[in-house]
């Protein structure tokens, strides 16, 4: 079993999109995953220190998905995701400082403290959020891809979603239109096995896998394991090429796992709806960072010392971000009614005409 798995792993290393990676690029992939892990761990610490409010949905364990997918983006490829959005944000190049400051509700946050954990955005990096309502982003992802096609741009929109989101109606409305209008959208189902506290088996009815539901829409679909970042990249690359060259959608399901609860408020994730042994098994045997690190060590691309260095750097970067967030000012009271209307913010003629706010 182990040797078969290893053989499969090597196959993905040989796919063109992976075999052409330079040593530097490989280390970069690992570094990005480690940065997300360290950011999330630091944000949990800060949450426990009561530095932030609201919800915190951690990405630990799923890093290979965001990093693998985003590593394939060209200038005209776009990303949108749900509320477990820190990993994708860092992967597209948002800084730890702006992300941590957003968690702290500070004016230096990526959304000036107006969005919070679930609502990170960086349109200049083709990153369109960060959406709090389960599956609410699936029609938006369709719209981003529609806009690319309308403008005649060769690009794709990767729309991430959890396994819980597949049971919302607007996802199927989106699939139908994606197929009907040949829209270059890629729905990436990050299947971490749990729809909040409800396991896959208790939340979804399916034949072989969730992505197979795309079959009924005549949409190309696939399923892969997220443990190996090379496997993620190989499968996503196929979908991106389909989007770029044929303007066709794809549904890709990636098996992954979260080490923490649905959110930090989820106390039953260990020993409740799932057993401690299950979590330990993933950490020991399927951790995407450890597996990729081992591969790079074995092939001589990386040394233990280098790994220690990049890990320490990520840890330090996260700690610095927490300090930056802590020392940043909170937004001004006046800012509460800013960024509501474009026209008002810009004080255009439309923004100066009529009353837009009604407190006085």
């Amino acid at each position, binding site marked *: 079993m182990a040797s078969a798995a290893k053989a499969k792993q090597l196959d993905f290393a040989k796919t063109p999109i992976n075999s052409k990676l330079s040593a530097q690029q490989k280390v970069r992939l690992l570094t990005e995953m480690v940065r997300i892990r360290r950011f999330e761990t630091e944000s949990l610490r800060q949450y426990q220190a009561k530095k932030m409010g609201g919800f915190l949905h951690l990405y630990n364990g799923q890093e290979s998905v965001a990093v693998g997918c985003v590593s394939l983006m060209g200038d005209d490829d776009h990303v949108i995701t749900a509320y477990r959005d820190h990993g994708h944000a860092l992967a597209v190049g948002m800084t730890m400082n702006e992300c941590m400051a957003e968690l702290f509700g500070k004016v230096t946050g990526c959304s000036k403290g107006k969005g919070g954990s679930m609502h990170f955005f960086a349109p200049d990096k083709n990153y369109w*959020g960060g959406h709090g309502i389960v599956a609410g982003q699936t029609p938006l*992802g369709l719209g*981003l891809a529609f806009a*690319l096609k309308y403008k005649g741009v060769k690009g794709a929109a990767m729309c991430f979603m959890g396994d819980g989101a597949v049971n919302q109606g*607007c996802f199927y409305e989106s699939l139908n239109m994606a197929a009907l209008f040949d829209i270059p959208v890629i729905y990436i189902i990050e299947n971490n096995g749990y729809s909040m506290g409800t396991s896959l088996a208790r939340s979804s009815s399916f034949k072989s896998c969730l992505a197979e539901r795309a079959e009924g829409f005549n949409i190309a679909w696939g399923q892969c394991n997220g443990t190996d970042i090379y496997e993620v990249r190989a499968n996503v690359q196929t979908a991106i090429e389909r989007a770029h060259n044929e303007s066709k959608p794809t549904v890709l399901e990636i098996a992954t796992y979260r080490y923490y609860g649905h959110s930090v408020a989820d106390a039953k994730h260990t020993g409740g709806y799932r057993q401690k042994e299950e979590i330990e098994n993933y950490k020991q045997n399927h951790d995407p960072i450890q597996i990729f690190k081992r591969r790079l060590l074995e092939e001589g691309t990386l040394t233990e010392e280098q790994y220690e260095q990049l890990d320490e750097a990520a840890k330090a970067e996260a700690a610095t971000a927490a300090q930056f967030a802590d020392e940043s000012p909170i937004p001004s009271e006046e800012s509460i009614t800013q960024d509501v209307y474009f026209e008002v913010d810009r004080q255009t003629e439309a923004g100066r005409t*009529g*009353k837009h706010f009604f407190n006085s």
Partner: protein
Amino acid sequence: MALIEYRDALNQAFAEEMERDPNVVLMGEEVAEYDGAYKVTRGLWQRFGSKRVMDTPISEAGFIGMGIGASMLGIRPVMELMFWSFAAVAWDQIINNAAQVRYMSGGLINCPIVIRGPANGGTNVGATHSHNHENFLANIPGLKVVCPATAYDAKGLMKSAIRDNDPVMFMENTLLYGEKGEVPEEEYLIPLGKADVKREGTDISLIAHGRAALTALKAAELLAAEHNINAEVVDLRSIRPLDEEAILASVRKTHRAVYIEENKPFCGVGAQIASMLQEKAFDDLDAPVLRISSMDAPAIYSPELEKKQLPRPLDIVEKVLSIC
């Protein structure tokens, strides 16, 4: 000036804006090959083709969300809801996405989208097809809400709505689509947030939006002819942004006000206006501000009764006489 139907005034606005800006796209159920369920978009598919005028499946949440997503990347979709009542199906996309994304992104994103269609009762189609959402939607910061009553207003406001960089909820009326009004040959725009005094008067202000403004005009004629009361009719045209100054100016002149709308009474637009008037024009008022809404029950089907459920000119006359 040409005398054209309300629907054709809207049609002209679409055509002109589509000619002006290649990013303007019309989408909705039956808007293209069928020419629109109410023929508002007739001829545009033939003229502009399938890329610019698109039929969508019956998937309001999906296609409204698609339009919102496209607008974030700079497309200017004009989305038809066959009935505004169907917005209930797309509520999450409108409320959580179109209205909030600018705010939650700290102003990095905006949604230049128009969502439009008829929002009215009075056509015997039962409660599911007869909702007025303007008060609900005007309650959401981030959205703009427009309710034109005439062909002239419909065209001018639609052109402004399409050029606006915020999401505009544009509410039409199936009972008005066939109504003719004068529309200039030359281009004009009407800004959102500007009310229109549709009849000058001195004795009482009849303030209204949508088709109720026309009902108020009829009531004003009756009041003049039969009761020697000279009523002023102020048509808000746009609910949010709101032309508060025009309302205050009228009430400071007449000292009496009645708000008329086809919405339901609880937290209706009239409630907002009445509250504002008691706060800002208390000393100018010689009588309490009264409100007329549709009768507070789901829209009844029975054709004869439904006429009575919506405000009629005589209902307004009666209300006015109680304070004049």
